[in-house]
């Protein structure tokens, strides 16, 4: 039966028991994550056609079958394979999609145990079908499993039967009659060492030398060699263009030893020839690394660093917002510039900025308009977005969870919210590998990279794995330096028990030498506030700040006040506040008092002086008159309008329609650091893109739900429900076909009327078709 991949997978899944489902989802973490509401797959699609979030009822076998049978799904499955299973799958594809156990043991450079393990992994992840043989690829995989070179299997259409016959004759083999037979015979001859050696012996010396070069280069990516590297200035199959090197290359091409891409002007050894030369498709078999685990700094990492870096970014860009590039992006220079204030590397700064964008904490703000007419351009900057206040109201644990989950679900590419699935897979695979390590331990970086690249060598190159590990360090899941392993806090976070912020010894000690020693577990907002008034001297566990006169003065100028700060320091301190510290703070507060610069929230301009006087008299509006027709208020535009409206002054919000008064927000206004316009008690609504759902808990929940769905899918009522849904779908399709048929009939009649010069009545309809052409005529 010729089943589609989706049908085939559906059949296989229906035969899975609970253990097999769990093994599938454990081995394929992205699949499990994909099934979560809001997970990466749920965000695939374009704009309005974005796939809606799955609900529990839809989390069925059909959905899993659909996900894993798409080309992207199969590619991701392959990417999760370890190198051994991957090579076995390639070997199967090389042999027409199947390989027997005895054949594998005899021909491959692996031990029987390695092969069994690889075969089991392929079966577990639905790459092969054990019901049909030891290793038999499931439908669709032959198209997505790339061979490690240019094979005749992939170029069948480009090779004519005559061409194959010529090749066979040059190898002194009589060509069979049909093209498939000729292809098989040619491949077999090339992979036969004796035949191939005889053919090579028959080559002219220049061609033989060229072949040696191609053999040497075949092992290195990309496997193809520019013909110029072989001394051939330009290759053409037309014999009119001749040089000695061209003749040598032509001899190799005619002998079907080399494949030439005339468009790209590259040459490559046929993979069959390479197999003939080296005796096997994979001369060696990867060994599973046995890395030695070492203890990690279990207390390092945690939410503090990433969240403080994020806060520092938001504050820095609130104060000096970088311009939005014409392409809509963020200037690289601006990202580099924040690396130092954030106390992170430039690469880490990129991660922080990316996450801030994905959390919608940064948004474009229009600050002005330049040009006119066609040349009119809005001047935009990147500033903290509307979700900033909500973010600030979240507890440390929730912020960290949302940050980590956003990272796990991302990154987004393009402007429609699509997810970079390859990157997403890489992140999940690294996390899952680290979760599997014993608690409190990690691996040396080199060992971790070796383990990850062997285990998932498609998804995780050494560069990708190293980058993901760096990002994990930035996120505080892995200690910022030293061995790679999940910290205790990271494990708790991923298991749904995120650190609450207030640790067992939360609080600090303020010492007379102006240092503030903060033990692990303090709330990030408190640390951010300390960071504004003190210099961080150490964050090697206990964070040590030193209250600094310059920073204190800057903070005071930015809205901090001495009493508030002293109350804050005293409230968090486990010991009484030293007198010298109190003096230090008050001294700093005194100094900027001579001259202050502030920002007004709004201004009120009004030509009617009496009305302005009336407005200024309203205390709640906090207006100060600075000119006969202008007053300023520290309130935001909305609050000012509300305050005036409450006393009967209704104002229009635009100055263009000759209003009685106009209110306009002052450009560049920013709230003082550490304060937010959002009331502290406001009900918090989480933006839809954030998730404080812990990764592992949610994944486990998805597994359980899926397993239940799968197990119940064989029950009669579930079958009946599915049947009813299919029937309903069918009815919709039939209705659509009927409408289409009617429309066509109308067109036929209209044509007949036209040809017979008969009178016809024509009208425009709004909806002729119910489908994609809605609105057509």
């Amino acid at each position, binding site marked *: 039966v010729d089943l589609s991949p989706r049908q085939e997978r559906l059949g296989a899944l229906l035969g899975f028991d609970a253990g097999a489902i769990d093994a599938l989802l454990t081995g394929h973490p992205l699949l499990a994550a994909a099934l979560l509401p809001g997970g990466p797959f749920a965000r695939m699609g374009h704009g309005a056609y974005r796939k809606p979030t799955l609900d529990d009822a839809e989390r069925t076998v059909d959905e899993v079958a659909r996900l894993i049978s798409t080309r992207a799904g199969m590619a991701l499955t392959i990417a999760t394979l370890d190198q051994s299973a991957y090579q076995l799958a390639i070997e199967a594809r090389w042999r027409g999609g199947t390989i027997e156990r005895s054949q594998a043991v005899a021909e491959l450079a692996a031990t029987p145990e390695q092969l069994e393990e690889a075969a089991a992994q392929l079966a577990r992840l639905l790459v092969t079908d054990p019901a049909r043989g030891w290793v038999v690829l499931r439908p669709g995989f032959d198209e997505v499993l790339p061979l490690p070179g240019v094979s005749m299997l992939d170029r069948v259409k480009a090779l004519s039967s005559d061409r194959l016959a010529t090749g066979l004759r040059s190898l002194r083999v009589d060509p069979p009659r049909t093209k498939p037979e000729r292809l098989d015979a040619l491949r077999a001859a090339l992979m036969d060492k004796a035949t191939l050696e005889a053919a090579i012996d028959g080559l002219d010396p220049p061609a033989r030398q060229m072949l040696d070069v191609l053999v040497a280069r075949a092992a290195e990516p990309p496997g193809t060699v520019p013909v110029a590297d072989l001394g051939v200035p330009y290759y053409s199959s037309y014999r009119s263009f001749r040089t000695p090197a061209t003749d040598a290359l032509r001899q190799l091409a005619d002998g079907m030893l080399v494949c030439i891409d005339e468009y790209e002007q590259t040459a490559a050894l046929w993979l069959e020839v390479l197999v003939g030369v080296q005796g096997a498709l994979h001369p060696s078999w990867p060994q599973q690394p046995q890395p030695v685990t070492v203890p990690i700094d279990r*207390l*390092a990492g945690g939410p503090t660093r990433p969240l403080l870096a994020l806060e520092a970014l938001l504050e820095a860009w609130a104060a000096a917002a970088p311009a939005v590039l014409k392409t809509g992006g963020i200037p690289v220079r601006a990202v580099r510039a924040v690396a130092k204030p954030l106390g992170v590397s430039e690469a880490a700064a990129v991660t922080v900025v990316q996450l801030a964008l994905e959390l919608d904490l940064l948004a474009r703000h229009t600050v002005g308009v330049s040009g006119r007419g066609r040349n009119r351009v809005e001047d935009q900057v990147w500033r903290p977005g509307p979700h900033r206040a909500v973010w600030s109201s979240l507890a440390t644990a929730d912020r960290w969870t949302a940050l980590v989950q956003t990272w796990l679900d991302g990154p987004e590419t393009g402007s429609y919210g699509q997810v970079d699935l390859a990157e997403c897979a890489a992140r999940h695979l690294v996390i899952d590998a680290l979760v599997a390590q014993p608690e409190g331990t990690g691996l040396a970086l080199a060992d971790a990279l070796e383990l990850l690249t062997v285990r998932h060598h498609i998804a995780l190159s050494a560069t990708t794995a190293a980058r993901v590990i760096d990002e994990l360090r930035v996120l505080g899941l892995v200690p910022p330096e030293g061995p790679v392993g999940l910290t205790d806090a990271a494990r708790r976070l991923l298991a749904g028990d995120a650190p609450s912020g207030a640790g067992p010894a939360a609080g600090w000690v303020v*010492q007379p030498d102006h240092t503030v020693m903060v033990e692990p577990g303090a709330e990030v907002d408190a640390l951010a506030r300390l960071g504004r008034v003190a210099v961080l001297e150490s964050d090697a*566990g*206990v964070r040590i700040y030193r209250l600094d006169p310059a920073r204190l003065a800057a903070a005071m100028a930015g809205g901090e006040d001495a009493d508030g700060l002293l109350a804050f320091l005293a409230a968090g301190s486990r010991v009484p506040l030293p007198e010298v510290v109190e003096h230090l703070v008050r*001294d700093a507060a*005194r100094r900027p008092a001579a001259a202050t610069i502030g920002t007004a929230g709004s201004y009120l301009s009004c030509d009617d002086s009496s009305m302005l006087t009336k407005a200024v008299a309203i205390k709640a509006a906090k207006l100060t008159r600075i000119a006969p027709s202008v007053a300023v208020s520290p309130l935001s535009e909305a609050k000012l309008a509300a305050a005036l409206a409450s006393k009967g002054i209704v104002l229009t919000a635009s100055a263009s329609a000759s209003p009685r008064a106009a209110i306009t927000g002052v450009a560049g206004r920013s709230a003082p650091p550490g304060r937010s316009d959002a009331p502290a008690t406001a009900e918090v609504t989480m933006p839809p893109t954030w998730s404080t759902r812990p990764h592992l808990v949610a994944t486990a929940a998805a597994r359980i739900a899926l397993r239940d769905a799968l197990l119940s899918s064989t029950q009669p009522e579930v079958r009946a429900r599915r049947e009813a849904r299919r029937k309903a779908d069918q009815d919709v399709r039939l209705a659509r076909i009927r409408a289409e048929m009617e429309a066509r009939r109308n067109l036929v009649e209209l044509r007949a009327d036209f040809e017979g010069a008969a009178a016809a009545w024509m009208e425009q309809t709004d909806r002729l078709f119910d489908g994609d052409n809605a609105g057509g005529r």
Partner: protein
Amino acid sequence: VVDPANPLIVQSDLTVLLEVASAHAGKARERLARFAELEKAPEHIHTYRLTPLSLWNAAVSGLDAGEVAMTLSGFAKYPVPPNVLTEVHDQMGRYGRIRLVRDFDSGGLAITSEEAALIEEVSRDKAAGTLLGERLDGNRFAVRLGDRGPLKQALLRLGWPVADEAGYDEGSPLDGVELTAELRSYQAEAASTWWAQGEAFGGNGVVVLPCGAGKTLVGMAAMVASGSHTLIVCTSISAARQWVREILHKTTLNADQVGEYSGERKEIRPVTVATYQILTWADPGASDDHDLGVRFPHLGLFDQHEWGLIVYDEVHLLPAPVFRATARIQSVRRLGLTATLVREDGREGDVFSLIGPKRYDTPWKELEALGWIAPATCTEVRVELSDEERMAYAITDPTARYRVAATSKAKLDALDRLIERHRGDRVLVIGQFLDQLKAVGKRYAAPVVTGQTSTKVREERFEAFRSGELPLLVVSKVANFSIDLPEANVAIQLSGTFGSRQEEAQRLGRVLRPKSDSGQATFYTVVARDTVDQQFALNRQRFLAEQGYGYRIVDADAL
């Protein structure tokens, strides 16, 4: 695992925080002090640091990495970061892998190691390699006697501390010398830690004790332990004479055995007390190109006599030529004494590598609690500049503003009130600017001691102050160090050397000697509000704040 009752927090940057309030703090400090350096000791949390030097020193004294790890883990409040334990194992495992030994064939020195690769690595190093002589055999290289110090320094910088097994020159014997005074417990501990029972790994290093805690006696105990001719180098003639007096008073030595080598006298005796000034006196006829001995002719004192011990008083002030001379005399036992191992030029590392590691240090407040130094209160008195002074300050060149602020007349008004408040006490008024000091002297008809005052007059005035004849003495920075004025109980600082932390601590030290009536010491620093004087004061107070001295800040009007 979190055990809130434990006193230590071990940080991944190799600092160890000790919570003083913990019940186990005392025991933890006792163990910690054997392998970690005390960095600061404010009121609540003391900071220690694990340095390669402190760990090597611990290894030398017989401590192994396991014991260090046990102490850290056993007293830790949170799990000890693994990198710290790795570093401890690594550093302690480095000591002794290269040894400096006597080469009995040539009579010189040689370095050797059992690891061929290591000795090759060292011999190929740019700095250390040039200090090695010929290869004697497979794993041994000859070392010139004069290169002993520089080679040790170079290898220290490479991270391979040498086990110096070549021993010391015993020097000429100082027979029959005994102490006639009893050592306090911490003095005895400091001296014995330095001496290390005469083993090769002892006999060098620095002892850090608060001012007034009796460092001189530790120096004398070291001299008695070594039993050899001793050269003592100190900061001034007054200090030198004080040393001589103390030695004669507290040891069995007589006046013929103790000499002064200074600008005024050139006596070389079995125990000689010299000054840094005379040793670093440069011959005006010699240029920079000349040999060290030609340019600084008195530096020859180090070599001219068979010293068995050299004591460096106030070692944090060691001048550069003495550094270089010290590098050449590594075969002589060395002891550095200081209260404030803070060098404003950041050369503490040179002190350690040439004189030796810090052997003993103890928090000031601990000795205060034991009654060995007087309890002290520190107060910053803030004065307001007058309108004229404020304007003068505003228009003055920034480099000269400190002088304007520090010499404000308002300070004299505050001084009036302080002196009035401490009528009956022994008051030292300390300052930086001579005009200001002279004005103060004139205002209160008090004698002034400055650098311009002859040694004889200085001695007379100090003696008059000691005897109680003078209740008020005005001094410049010449009295910062080594001047023993035990009955002074109030010090009022009007100005100082900008933001110098060690100067502030040394000035407090003038009143810290225990009082006969167990009375309190009081230290005032008078500061002009909203000027650089106030900023400098903040920095100056840092060392003392780190030693647990909390400053009260009061307005002059509130006095």
